[in-house]
């Protein structure tokens, strides 16, 4: 699958998984991440800059607030997606 498409699936998967743990706050915190644009229906995202870096910022945003466990939640949520990406395509925060 196209790398760019794969990458845009990652933030939605991460935010939805965080939503299960912390509720709507997940969308609120994700909204603060620079370079990440979330559509109103919460079904897709776009990047205004480097996608991989934006994902790293998103993971960092959750980790800063909720600690190491939240980083694991982000990683677990996207295992099936990153399984099909080459190592250099995977954002460093999810490795």
């Amino acid at each position, binding site marked *: 699958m196209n790398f760019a498409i794969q990458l845009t699936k990652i933030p939605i998967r991460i935010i939805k998984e965080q939503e299960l743990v912390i509720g709507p706050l997940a969308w609120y915190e994700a909204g603060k991440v620079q370079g990440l644009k979330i559509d109103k229906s919460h079904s897709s995202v776009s990047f205004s800059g480097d996608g991989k870096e934006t994902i790293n910022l998103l993971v960092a945003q959750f980790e800063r607030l909720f*600690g190491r466990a939240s980083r694991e939640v982000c990683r677990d949520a996207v*295992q099936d997606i990153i399984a099909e990406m080459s190592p250099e395509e995977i954002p460093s925060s999810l490795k």
Partner: protein
Amino acid sequence: MPETEETKKITEALYEQNLELAVKNKTLALLEKLYQKSISVLAPGVMAQEIIDTIREDLNLEFTGIFNFSSGADSLIPLAFSKSDRLIQTLNKLGFLFLDIKITDVKKRDFLKKIVYDKKFGMTDKLEEIWAGLIKPKHLQEIKKSSHIKTILLYPLSIGDDILGVLILGLNRDYQALSAFEKSSIVSFTNVITLSLNKAYLYKDLQDANENLKELLKQRESLTHLINHKVKGAFTHSKYIFAEMLEGTFGALSPELKRMAVNGLESDNIGINTIDLVLNASNMQKGTIKYDLKEVDLKDIVLKVLSDKKIQAEAKGLKVEKNIKTDKYRVLGDAYWIKEAINNLVDNSIKYTMKGKIIVGLKKNAGEILFSIKDTGIGITDEDKKNLFTEGGRGKDSVRVNTDSTGYGLYSVKLIIEAHRGKVWAESEVNKGTTIFVELPLK
């Protein structure tokens, strides 16, 4: 509010607790979905398909499948498969579906043998371990590559010692990469699938048995019709010919001819009585007999039957004793059918008692009337006791003593007595005799 080290620790601890709950919630939500599927559909194939579609979508798997295990054929027979779009595309290109490939010779496949016969969980990264010899190696390679299948998990679906089948899950990632939710869900839903499948198969067996029963009832109905109209008609026809002969309608009969006519008439009567007995039992079973319930004195019925049977008993040299006090033994019942039941019991006692006596008793208990008939006959073996009041339940010895035994007499008695909210049972000892008890509610 500025975040201190302490509030950060508290937030993180709360997050971890929430995470634990979220994992449980997700697992429960998935199980609830599977449960809903299992109760909304009853056909095993459809139910299995819905369940594995749900699992594949919720856990983002490449494929999921359920095999039925046939121990006789030593084969795993695909019941349902759910596949990702890209796997469907690959399989379409290759010209087969997993659903059409039966896995034979399970015992000869070491990997599968462990799952099916040892009921152990299995994990592999080689599709060959499952489909070797059934799918070409180059096709398996293509499936693995185009669908990114990294791990295949197999779980036995077993209840007690019985193995119903195998659940197969194809992942595009390593087992270690599964989240806590995914790992705990897999363990839980394996049990749900086993129970749901078991239930679906039980239901299917029940449905098949019901269909067979309906078919048998239809055949029985048609047989009953045939017996009633053709066989009984033929008996009745010849009965009147013999009766007319004995009446002298066809002129005087020689002693030989007269003896033959008497035998013929008697034989026809036995035939007609037997048919009536079987047809009555059949009608009682179907519930087509309408009982005309009125207050009747059981004593009057018993005494009338004993009087009718007096000659028959005397002919065999049997003594008939009555243990009936002068009292009223009122029950609510249909006098005709109760008389049929009592007549049957007395008749049986006379037929199965070669010498000795028959004691008939009536007793009033609290709320009930107890009728008993005790004989000094051949008695009933423990094995025959099991079939005593069942349809066609003739005992081995009973046929020897009474060749006309139909196996419907006591069955009819049971149906009549139970229709009157009573019960009937027997106590017996081989070569010592039998006592049959009938209990009816006191009016």
